[in-house]
């Protein structure tokens, strides 16, 4: 995509503006990448779910912030809200960044397109392939192995699982999100109930692996090509196991496995491949996330601005050639406060909107709110 074409993109809406220090969503980092894009200069609209999602208020990254209804409110409520925000902000592209949003957005992509909102997402079939209960199948595509995973529907399993050859510690996982290492049956049963309440059934149990995690993020172009890969090993973790610091690496086995995976699935859209190199040096596929990771700013930091490249792909254009990535560049995350006037917070709580007022001649803004 030429610089002029990218510069003509009016705006991009990005979800996942939550940014709790122990488990941040990727949205703020995606918005930051777009803001620092070499050619993209359109508006950035941050979409969150909670009035305390900080990205909604961060003017340096988002020109406006809006709250969305939770997916449980249904497709109609979601589409109505997007239509309202689109009328106000006129964005051309939406980049979802949360796992739980993906199934709905893949389903609604044609309706969004009718509205003039593009997406660049995997198909429903591709999305199902990366479900955690099909990890083994996916690992085969990539020439890797995957830790044994089993669906669990009753907490009683954790008290008799040793009879079936399972040992503690083990990992209790939600089908779409969340994971907890459990070292005894009581902890596992509690994790099972918590995850089931939040994410539904089935809950998964996975063998615990000892080793080192290495991750790759990239774009799949939908034709079988892996674009702009950036690999990272975590150097520091939060209590929830999320990266607090990491360093770029050049792991050829991970790269080849990811290329095979994208070629086999013809993956379309962003992805994060999470692999554990176990104590025996085997590459075990832990997860494929169908979105940018929260550490995506590292990619822009080493010259591969994948969110900006996604804008090109969404408009049917090839992104600029990616520069080589030298291993040995670190990111270190930090937490800081943003200051929010009560009036802005009130606006987000009451109307789910933070933006510069757009005054009409009668002194009211576009939504009839007195500025």
């Amino acid at each position: 995509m030429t610089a002029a074409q990218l510069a003509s993109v009016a705006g991009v809406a990005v979800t996942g503006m939550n940014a709790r220090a122990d488990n941040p969503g990727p949205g703020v980092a995606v918005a930051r990448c777009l803001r620092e894009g070499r050619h993209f200069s359109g508006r950035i609209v941050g979409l969150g779910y909670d009035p305390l999602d900080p990205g909604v208020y961060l003017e340096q990254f988002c020109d406006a912030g809006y709250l969305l209804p939770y997916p449980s409110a249904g497709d109609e409520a979601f589409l109505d809200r997007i239509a309202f925000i689109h009328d106000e902000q006129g964005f051309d592209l939406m980049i979802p960044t949360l796992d739980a949003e993906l199934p709905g957005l893949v389903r609604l992509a044609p309706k969004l397109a009718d509205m003039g909102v593009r997406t660049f997402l995997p198909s429903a079939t591709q999305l199902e392939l990366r479900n955690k209960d099909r990890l083994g199948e996916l690992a085969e595509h990539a020439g890797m192995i995957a830790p044994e995973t089993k669906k669990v529907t009753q907490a009683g399993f954790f008290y008799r699982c040793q009879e079936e050859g399972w040992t503690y510690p083990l990992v209790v996982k939600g089908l779409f999100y969340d994971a907890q290492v459990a070292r005894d049956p009581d902890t596992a049963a509690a994790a099972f109930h918590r995850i089931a309440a939040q994410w539904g059934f089935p809950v998964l149990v996975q063998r615990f692996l000892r080793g080192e995690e290495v991750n790759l993020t990239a774009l799949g172009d939908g034709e079988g090509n892996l674009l702009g890969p950036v690999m990272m090993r975590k150097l520091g973790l939060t209590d929830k196991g999320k990266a607090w610091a990491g360093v770029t690496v050049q792991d050829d086995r991970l790269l080849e496995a990811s290329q095979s995976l994208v070629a086999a699935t013809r993956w379309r859209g962003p992805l994060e491949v999470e692999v554990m190199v176990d104590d025996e040096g085997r590459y075990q596929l832990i997860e494929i996330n169908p979105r940018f990771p929260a550490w995506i700013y590292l990619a822009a930091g080493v010259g591969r601005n994948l969110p900006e490249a996604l804008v090109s792909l969404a408009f049917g254009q090839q992104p600029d050639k990616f520069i080589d990535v030298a291993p040995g560049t670190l990111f270190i995350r930090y937490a800081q406060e943003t200051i929010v006037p009560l009036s802005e917070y009130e606006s987000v709580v009451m109307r789910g909107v933070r933006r510069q007022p757009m005054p009409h001649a009668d002194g009211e803004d576009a939504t009839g709110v007195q500025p």
Partner: protein
Amino acid sequence: MDDSERLPRRAVLARLAISESGFVFDPTTGHSFIVNETGLVVLRRLQAGSPMRDLIVTLQDDYDAAPAELERDVLEFVGSLRKLVDAQ
């Protein structure tokens, strides 16, 4: 025991980024560690492909230590090095 059993794999040694300060970075695993001045000399010579026997002879010229003591220290060093870099 020959060098291939004692030393880290040649490909692993070759990829290490070794700074003058003694900071060593493995670009494949992301691991980093620090070696002292003597370790830096040993590591650089190993990276250049120097066999252990030649390395020990060379060190005898530079360091005032008994050959057996020198050999023991070098073996201990390469043992630690293997643990640090040879996992992958």
